[in-house]
Every structure is written in C-alpha cells, then in structure tokens.
C-alpha cells in the first residue's frame, strides 16, 4: 500500500512522510524519521514515555495516529536543546541526578516543559499533578520534582 502522505512541522522543520493508517505517530517518529528520543513504554497511554507536544499540547504519541499529524506542529525531545546548549530542564535533571535508567526521561522533560510553559512558578503539588501522566520506576520522583523546581527558577530569572 502506498500509504497516506502527511505534511507536518517537527521541531520547526517542515517534514513530509508516508505512513500507513495503523501507524502511530510514535511509530512514525522512531521508525520512519529516526527520532528515537520518544520511547514506547506501555503503548496504551499510561506511562508517558512517548510524550510529545502537538500544537502546543502535551500528548502521548503512542495514542496519536501518524495521519493525525497532518498540518500540525510537533515538538519532540530532539528539539529541546539548542545545539550543544542544554535546555535548563535538561541541565537540572543532570545536576539533581533526576534519572537512573533514563527511559522515562525524555517524556518527563517534555511534560515538564509543557507544564512550565503554562505555569512558570508551580508549587510542588502542581508539579506532581502536572507530571501525573509520566511514570518513573527508578527515582521515586523526588529528584525529578526538585529538578523541575530548580529549572523553573532558572527559567523565571532568564
């Protein structure tokens, strides 16, 4: 089958691809476009490892069809750092050791970026509520919350 032709914007670049109707956007990002930062954890929208931002809204790319990205704006973890300069969230995740195995980390960074875009000065409770759709089996979340708080204060000062 020839597939569906999709024109979209990914991390600011115009991208065109062909995909089958049953492919998720996560499949397309990873297998067709080589953007492997978003991970498949559960594949059912529970874990958030596949988090991306679609038209300015945090979503699970495993529950979005590749065809749905037509004409929309996609932001992935690959677009987060500015060349070699890490995003403050990435820098603070390293400084606070807010990761262990790392498979959930791209999802947490994207979710935290979306949260801070909406609420630049969240309380600890708001951070935990805002990151509720992302699961981490290693850290116990405490270091993640502290890294987000620290990054938020850096970003507010910038």
């Amino acid at each position: 089958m020839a597939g569906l032709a999709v024109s979209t914007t990914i991390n600011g670049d115009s991208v065109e691809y062909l995909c089958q109707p049953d492919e998720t956007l996560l499949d397309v990002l990873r297998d067709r476009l080589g953007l492997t930062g978003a991970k498949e954890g559960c594949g059912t929208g529970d874990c958030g490892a596949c988090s991306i931002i679609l038209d300015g809204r945090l979503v699970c790319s495993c529950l979005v069809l590749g065809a749905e990205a037509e004409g929309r704006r996609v932001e992935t973890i690959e677009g987060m750092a500015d060349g070699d300069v890490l995003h403050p969230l990435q820098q603070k995740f390293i400084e606070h050791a807010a990761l262990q195995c790392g498979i959930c980390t791209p999802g947490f960074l994207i979710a935290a970026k979306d949260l801070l875009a909406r609420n630049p000065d969240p309380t600890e409770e708001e951070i935990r509520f805002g990151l509720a759709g992302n699961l981490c089996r290693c850290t116990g979340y405490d270091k993640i919350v502290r890294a987000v708080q620290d990054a938020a204060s850096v970003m507010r000062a910038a």
Partner: protein
Amino acid sequence: MYSLNYHRASSVADAVKLQKKGEDAKFVSGGMTLIPAMKSRLAAPSDLVDLAHIAEMKGIKVSGKTVTIGGGTTHAEVATDAKLKAVCPALSYLASHIGDPHVRHKGTIGGSIANNDPAADYPAAMLALGATIITNKREIAADKFFTGLFETALKDGEIVTGVSFTAPAQAAYEKFRNPASRYAIVGVFVAKGKDGVRVAVTGAGDEGVFRAKGMEAALTKSFVPASLDGLAIPASGLMSDMHASAEYRSSLITVMAKRAVAKASA
C-alpha cells in the same frame, strides 16, 4: 496495530458520509479510549473517521446561564475556559481531574459521553445537570441517553456534536479516584437548580451512571450534608472489583455526596 483505513472529516455531514462508506467504520474523537482498545483488539473497526478537525464541533458558549459545549472540545479546554468557570466551576473542576494532562489535552467531552465508561466523570455531570445531549440527528435528555455499561441511546451514524445545560445555582463534584488511572472508583455530582437537587453517581453502578433519587429528595428539603445522614445506596446494585467492594462503594457514595454538598455550599 492492524490494517485499517483512516479518513479525516471536514464537517459533520462529511463524517456521516465517510462512516457510511466503511464496512465497520467508527468515529474517533480524541482516541484516548478507542486507540488503546484497538491496540488490545477489544475494538477492531475497519475504518476510522477522525472528528478532531470539525470546527463546528469545537468551543464553549455561555449566554446568561445557558452553556453549550461542542462535542469536540477537549477536557483541558473545558477545565480552563474562563466563561464556564464563572457560571459552573463544578464542571471545570471535574474536567481538570480527568485522567492526566496527556489525556485532557486530547480526549473530548463528546467522545467521553458517547463511550459512557461506567467510571467516566462526564456522564455524572450530564445527568446531575439535566443536560441535553445534542447529536447530528436530534436532542436527547441525559436521563434517556445513558442506557448501560458503555451503552447509550446513540444509533449507528449518530455523533454527539455537543451538550447544553442551564448552569445550576450551586453544584460540586467529588470523586474518590483510582490512584493509577484516576478514573472514579466513586464520583458524585450534586447540582441544585430551580427544579430541586439532582445527584448523579459514577464509577459505582452495575449498570453505569445513575441518579440517587433518595438523596435528591432529602437534599431538596434541606441542602446540607447532614440531610444524607443514614442514607445509603444499597450495595446490591453496585460493582465489586479489585479496587473496591460493593459495600465499600456504597459507603463511599454517601461520603462523596456529603463532601460535594459541603463544597457546593461553601
């Protein structure tokens, strides 16, 4: 997943036409239930008709006390709309506590109502608010819309294009949520309007969402939490599962209803 066809509808009329063409075509709105169901083969439509780009199904209108919400409006939009918050903060609160941010950004009110999950939040609000469910063919009172577990009055080819209701003088939603899924183990929506009090319970009923008429009568007499002292929904019609027994759900309904009344009166 599995081989299927995808169609993007540009209007409600277009969606109906596309759905008729497919062998076993289904409408998809946010896809937050349907896509996982397809992945696990609980559903296997031949075609998906995407409703997410139909402009006429989006947005929230508030005119005086009359609220109209397009079926394609996401939970996040319902949760943050300032006009809605001003007239019916209980519904804004309910929407802000559905699932997690990922779900709220994509899932829609029309999709949730049409799916009628027995633990979904919106059906309780629709029943308690005495809402009208608007489809491409007719208008259906919420009391007649929710007919059983995942069952509604919708016919094949019918789309929930919106809902409307009159904002009540006082209302609140309280839910005892499953800590993992954030679905309601028990959720109670209480609304005090000009025709009395309506109480709707989700997450608990064997047959899905239902109204607690005994509680409604007691609260219509006196809208205070103490009116519910000694009142309980019998466990016999309630669900038992790994999360909660029917007896526990029965107890939770009264607790959540009292909290909702206290919150609505605050």
